[in-house]
């Protein structure tokens, strides 16, 4: 067997929890694989659904979004809205035929350096197993990239985004923040727009 693949991983971490957890992992000198590159955002709620897709189109083999634990977002519901965006991303990846495991959204509180390390180590490991983007999917890099670019474009489109607004709205109304409910709401609200995406 050849040496294990060294994947490229892009992270979006919220300033208040996961980014702080990553810092505290450093302070505690907990070691993890050097594959992650981090973009700091104030809250995972800032995550535009197009960002992860663009990340994959720009050479990432895996995307990690890290926020505060549910109920602990510094801005109250940001991470719930992030789950809505994340569902769309997963939905689109599935459509394109990219393993959903390449996109992970998870939580670590400011005090949880070791937990962050655990999450990121496991994720890196998993993405390494999947190999370079396209390998597990059986597609050429060019093909995958152009499909991802299309998906990103769609994620910026008014149609899809209105679907997301409706999903977010219903989530807030029902106050049901489970991942499965959110993902079925996104499926439902964006079904039509997603259908148009080949």
């Amino acid at each position, binding site marked *: 067997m050849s040496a294990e693949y060294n994947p490229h991983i892009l992270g979006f971490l919220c300033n208040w929890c996961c980014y702080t957890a990553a810092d505290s992992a450093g302070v505690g000198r907990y070691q993890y694989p050097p594959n992650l*590159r981090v973009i*700091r955002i104030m809250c995972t709620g800032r995550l535009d659904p197009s960002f992860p897709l663009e990340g994959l189109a*720009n050479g990432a083999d895996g995307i990690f979004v890290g926020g505060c634990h549910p109920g602990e977002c510094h801005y109250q519901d940001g991470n719930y809205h*992030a789950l809505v965006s994340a569902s769309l991303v997963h939905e689109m990846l599935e459509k394109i035929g990219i393993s959903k495991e390449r996109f992970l959204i998870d939580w670590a509180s400011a005090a949880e350096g070791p937990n962050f390390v655990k999450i990121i180590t496991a994720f890196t490991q998993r993405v390494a197993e999947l190999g370079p983007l396209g390998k597990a999917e059986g597609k050429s890099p060019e093909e995958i990239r152009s499909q991802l670019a299309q998906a990103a474009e769609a994620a910026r489109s*008014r149609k899809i985004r209105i679907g997301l607004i409706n999903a977010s709205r219903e989530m*807030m109304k029902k106050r049901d923040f489970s991942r499965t409910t959110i993902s079925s709401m996104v499926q439902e609200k964006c079904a039509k727009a997603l259908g148009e995406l080949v």
Partner: protein
Amino acid sequence: MNAPAPNSQSLSTIGSVMVIGGGVAGVQTALDLSDLGFKVYLVEKSGAIGGVMARLDKTFPTNDCSLCILAPKLVEAGRDANIAILTKSELLSLEGEPGRFTARIKKQPRYIDEEVCTGCGQCTLYCLKQIGDDYNENLCRTAAAHIDYSQAVPTSYHIDPKSCLRLNYETCGLCAVACRAGAIRFDDTEEIVDVPVGAVVLAPGFGRVSEEVLRTYGWGKFDDVLTAFEHERLMCASGPTGGEIVRPSDEKHPKKIAFLQCIGSRDETCGNNYCSSVCCMYAIKQASLAREHDPDAEITLFYMDVRTHGKGFDAARERAIAENNFRVVYARPPRVEDVFDGGLLLTWVDEAGKHQYEKFDLVVLSQGLEAPEDADKLAQAASVDLNHYQFAATDSYAPLETSRPGVYVIGAFQGPKDIPDSVTQAGGVAGICSGVLAQARNSETVAATFPVERDIEGEEPRVGVFVCHCGINIGGVVNVPDVRDYAKTLPNVVYTTDNLYSCSQDTQKHLVEIIKEHKLNRLVVSACTPRTHEPLFQATMREAGLNRSLFEMANIRDQCSWVHMHEKEAATEKAKDLVRMAVAKACLLTPLEEQELPVTPSALVLGGGLAGMTAALTIADQGYECTLVEREKKLGGRTLLLSKDRFGNVPGEAVKKLSDRVKVHEKITVLTEAELDTISGYVGNFTSTVAGPKGNTVINHGVVILATGGKPYVPRKYGYGDSSLVLTQIDLEKRLERKKPLPNNCRQIVMIQCVGSRGDDLSYCSRVCCGQAVKNALRIKELSPETQVTILYRDMRTYGFMEDDYRKAREKGVLFTRYTPERPPEVTVGKDSRNKPIVTSYDAILGEEVERKADLLILSTGIEADDPTALAKLLKVPITADKFYLEAHVKLRPVDLAVDGVFVCGLAHSPKSIEETIAQAQAAGGRACQPLSHGRITPEPIVSSVDPEKCIGCGACEKFCPYKAIQIYKEGKIRKAGTISASCKGCGVCAARCPTLAIDMGRFTYDSIMAQVRAFNPQGEENVS
């Protein structure tokens, strides 16, 4: 130095404070006081501020780089227009009364003009006279013309008059020729200045254990016996060996290292019976770093007791010992001997009473903290009393007050303590001074001004990239020059450099010059984390006339070199990627307008115990309204469970005095039987509802203090609850107040320490139980000297001056027997009070189990937090696994929480003594008033903005904004969204949901994040979609 002349209204209160001592405590007080609106004279006897903390390589328990966290504070103090730093100065006398003192200061000449010196270092290069380098513990040499250390503040050199050839023999004078700035002043003279001040804070730090004591352990005789301070310098990248731990005798790496504890502490023979409180933990730190330097070295720590009683310390120690494979020996080797074939011989008596001996390559003496050498002189000058160990005499209920009103004491001079406790006291004393001098607030200060911002409109991005070595923190792993050179190749980068410490004052100065010289309009610093250091660099940018939003950081330490220590190449690659991404983002940054928000000048304090009441009074005395919310009917909290303190005073009386003051204070509203129901808002503008017996009260306030307290842990073993003869220490406190406290014919009382603590139900050490046990043992001995009191313990943690009680207890015949967690004592109890509990424990010296029949069995149990989960959720503040609030920074922000405007004190923070609780509550009260005293806050301009062209008025943003900070308005018939900047917190949910991407976030724009994503591309090719 021009001190302001006493003005015409010299009878009124003076709005300035003199702080004696420029260590971390003094600097923190100065910063806090300046923030609260007072002028500060920071008097330091050496050539630079920073104190001992500046000499440390790392700080426990997180092993944070000491200078990295201290330097920003020093820089801030150095550039604060309201802090006058007087170096080489000392207090001669103090006349006057509180509010109106005249402090006479003697200022020794520096012989180099501070105002003119550029810190270039030419004088040192040319200086012919070598002297011992005090900063490096004389392990190396420096020149007579020198700077104390490279990050020193003020960034100015000075000449040692004792050794300078010119000053002594009228020869040489080369430095004056070499100095291009013309800053050398051989005719500089001593100055005496009288400074009018309203209050004085003594923060001179601690002194060193005498050489005589060190010599008994072979120091000075054998090269390879080092003091901990020397060892600390050896570990440090900026130290004499560049961070190599080598034996002074042969410059080889030591393979067997021994750490000896309690050198000059807990030692009657040298007069220091007290415990220095910090050495147990710093030895663990040093040992861990020695391990980092050499994975194979054998490291042994010799302890009498392992006193790691601070918050999170036990956990840190256990982890360090397990991970680093240290050997811990409970013994006190009395001396160090050399042996014939080299090496250092230690002999000791082990716990079983057997003699042991072993050879080591290096012995490190964990020396204690003494009172400062010139404590006497200082006490005389300030007319304050000292205690029998030459530390400042204070009272448990007013821990920061000296015997002279208006003169306060903080830090190690108040009693040996660690950095967080010193910083806490610093905050506390600022709060007190701010109360005493409240009427003179802002009377002596000047407002900070920045130059007008340069308009960069239309300019191409000109990015400067600064890569930091952070000593060896980054440079030891990441190839910094390589990263620097790489940065040079990036588009729009016009300037790159690397620095040993980017955060030092001279680098900051240099930065300003470079920004101007190279007309930089964007700045990228690749160093530590923006969470702690962004404000510092942003302030520097403002000084250089740039908008602070044109700044970006690449985190190549906390998230790179520290987490990939064994993968140097990969870490270097990662650092380059991070720099590339940061530069890409920086190019797209635009200047953002600053906003100002009003502040509701009042506070909400939750919890009416000792901590809450003290905090409320500290705030109210400073002139701000305060609402105190207490769940119970009465104020007072858990302090009332203690019947006597270690001096025989009744804590309840002090609490009563406090609550009496609270009740009549015109600025304090007390709500009892009340609990917080909801809270919303942010610093400056909180709104809370408090549910009480008479319904809900709505309160608007600017800050919150959490003083929600803790509660005694209730043990579930050793027959507690089954037998009336088994009590907790708290039960005993009450019983000792009875008319007949002890059972008839009471022969033996047994106490068991750490019941339910340190790895049992509570994972941590509660800090106060050992002291309480000893105190109660002495009370029993007083009542009935013939009663045998036996204390079964793991480590007696009678830190600080409590050690006196420990000694006294032993002298009075109290028996102390150590047990290990593997072999804890066992107890059998009968049902009724005639069946005495039988306690069995293993005695190492006898080598067998010993049975004791106890007339009373006392369990020393810890303190639990009152479950903070619900409140923490409401406030969005983190809590530790042990359910205490997690402070924003363990060392330097010990009472702030991560959320601005929220503070913590008392047992809700961690278990602590009465004295520590009071100081911490005063600190919380002082810190909380900072935003209140400003009257406004200027949050980061990271708010949302709407492009009306693109906005379709759908209202999704309004719907999802958690702060009602974006609202739909009508322009004729057209609906548009608009941001209310004052309420926006910058989360970005609106932007992520906007259907037309009409909303963007300041500094986190769509395009700038996309630029980062594209720059991430490992193939280097950008996939522009």
